C-alpha cells in the first residue's frame, strides 16, 4: 500500500537544531537542507514575487526595510536577498532552493499568492526540468476562488499539479465547499484540508471523487496516529503537512510499515 507522503512545513518545521546546536529557522536554506537530510518526502513553503519578478520563499507578505514596511512585490530581489533571517541567512529564492537540491528526487509544494507567482514557478521548474516535482496550492486563507488563482496558470501550462487548500471559512467541509466545477475544469488534483476539519467521511468522499486527499497542520502524536491509520479501499491519506515532519515520519514507519 502506498504510504502517506510527508511534507516538511517551511523545511524542517519547528524545534530543530543542527550539529552545532544552532537553531534552524523556518524557510531558510538550512531548514530545507535539514529536512532533506532527515528524509522528508517533500518541502512545503510559501512563494511570492518580488517587484522584478523573482520568486522569493517567504511566509510574510511584507518586509521591513529600514523601519518601513513594504509588500514583497514592491521590493526588488537584490534588496530582499540582502535582508537577513533570524539566523543571519539571506531570504532564499526559488532558484537557491532548486540549485541546492539539483538532481535529488524531491517534491515541492508552494502556497502561491496569485497566478503570477505560479506561472514564474512553472517557468523556472521547466528550466530545471522538474515540473513533475512541483505542486502549486491555493492558500486556505485566500478568499479568492480557485478560478481567480489557477485559471491563468492552467492556461499557461496543462501539466502542473494544482492543489485546492479548502478555505477555513467553512465550519464543516462538504461537497458544496470544494468548488467542484472549477476543480474539474482546471484539472485540480488535490484537496487539502486542515486536520481539525477532517474525518473519515470526508476522506472517503474525496477519494470517491477521484482526488488526492491531503491534511495540513498536524502537530500532536495522537492526531497523527489517528490519520496515519485511516485507510479507505486499501489507500492511506495521500499526503500530510506538518511542523513536526520527523515525528510524523517515525509514526508512519510504525503504522504504515
Amino acid at each position: 500500500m502506498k504510504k502517506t507522503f510527508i511534507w516538511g512545513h517551511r523545511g524542517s518545521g519547528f524545534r530543530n537544531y543542527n550539529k552545532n546546536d544552532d537553531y534552524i529557522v523556518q524557510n531558510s536554506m538550512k531548514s530545507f537542507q535539514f529536512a532533506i537530510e532527515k528524509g522528508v518526502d517533500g518541502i512545503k513553503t510559501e512563494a511570492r514575487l518580488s517587484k522584478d519578478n523573482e520568486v522569493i520563499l517567504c511566509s510574510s507578505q511584507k518586509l521591513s526595510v529600514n523601519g518601513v514596511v513594504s509588500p514583497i512585490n514592491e521590493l526588488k530581489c537584490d534588496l530582499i536577498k540582502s535582508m537577513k533571517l533570524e539566523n543571519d541567512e539571506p531570504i532564499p529564492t526559488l532558484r537557491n532552493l532548486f540549485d541546492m537540491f539539483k538532481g535529488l528526487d524531491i517534491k515541492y509544494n508552494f502556497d502561491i499568492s496569485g497566478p503570477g507567482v505560479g506561472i514564474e514557478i512553472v517557468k523556472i521548474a521547466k528550466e530545471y526540468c522538474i515540473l513533475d516535482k512541483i505542486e502549486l496550492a491555493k492558500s486556505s486563507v485566500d478568499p479568492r476562488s480557485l478560478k481567480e488563482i489557477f485559471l491563468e496558470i492552467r492556461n499557461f501550462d496543462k501539466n502542473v499539479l494544482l492543489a485546492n487548500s479548502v478555505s477555513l471559512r467553512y465550519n464543516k467541509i462538504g461537497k458544496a465547499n470544494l468548488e467542484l466545477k472549477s476543480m474539474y475544469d482546471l484539472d485540480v488534483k488535490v484537496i487539502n484540508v486542515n486536520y481539525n476539519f477532517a474525518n473519515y467521511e470526508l476522506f472517503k468522499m474525496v477519494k470517491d471523487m477521484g482526488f488526492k486527499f491531503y491534511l495540513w497542520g498536524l502537530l500532536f502524536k495522537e492526531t497523527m496516529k489517528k490519520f496515519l491509520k485511516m485507510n479507505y479501499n486499501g489507500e492511506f491519506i495521500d499526503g500530510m503537512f506538518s511542523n513536526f515532519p520527523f515525528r510524523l515520519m517515525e509514526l508512519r514507519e510504525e503504522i504504515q510499515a
Partner: protein
Amino acid sequence: MEIKTQKIDGILKFYEKIKNLSKSNTIIKKELVELNLKKVQVILNSPHYTYWVIFGNGIFNYGKGEIENADIIVKSKFSLMKKILNQKKMPHTEFVKKNLQVEGDVQYAVVYFDFINFALDQNKKKELE
C-alpha cells in the same frame, strides 16, 4: 461593578484549567515540551480586557494585563473568545471571517488554539473514562 469584573476575569478560569492539565496530564505535558515557547497577547473588546498566555518548552502560564515582546497578538470580541474557549466556535473559521485578528506569524496562532483545543479534548476524554 465588582461582580462585573469577576465575571470578566472568569475567562481566565479556562487558562487555569489548561495550566493544571499541563502539569497533571502526561500526554498534554509531553506535547507542551515539544512546542516552541511563544508569548501570546490577547486583547478583547466589548468589554475591553487584556491577558497574556505563554506556552511551549513545557511551560503553560497566563496572566491579566499585558506582556512585553509578544510573538503574536490575538484580538476579538470578548463573547467570541468565550465561545472559542468553550469549543463552540472554530478559531480558524473566525480568523478567515475576520472576526478574530492576528498580528504576527499566523501559524503560531493556529498552534496556540490547536494546543488549547487539544488540552480541552484530552480533558474531556479523561472525564469520560
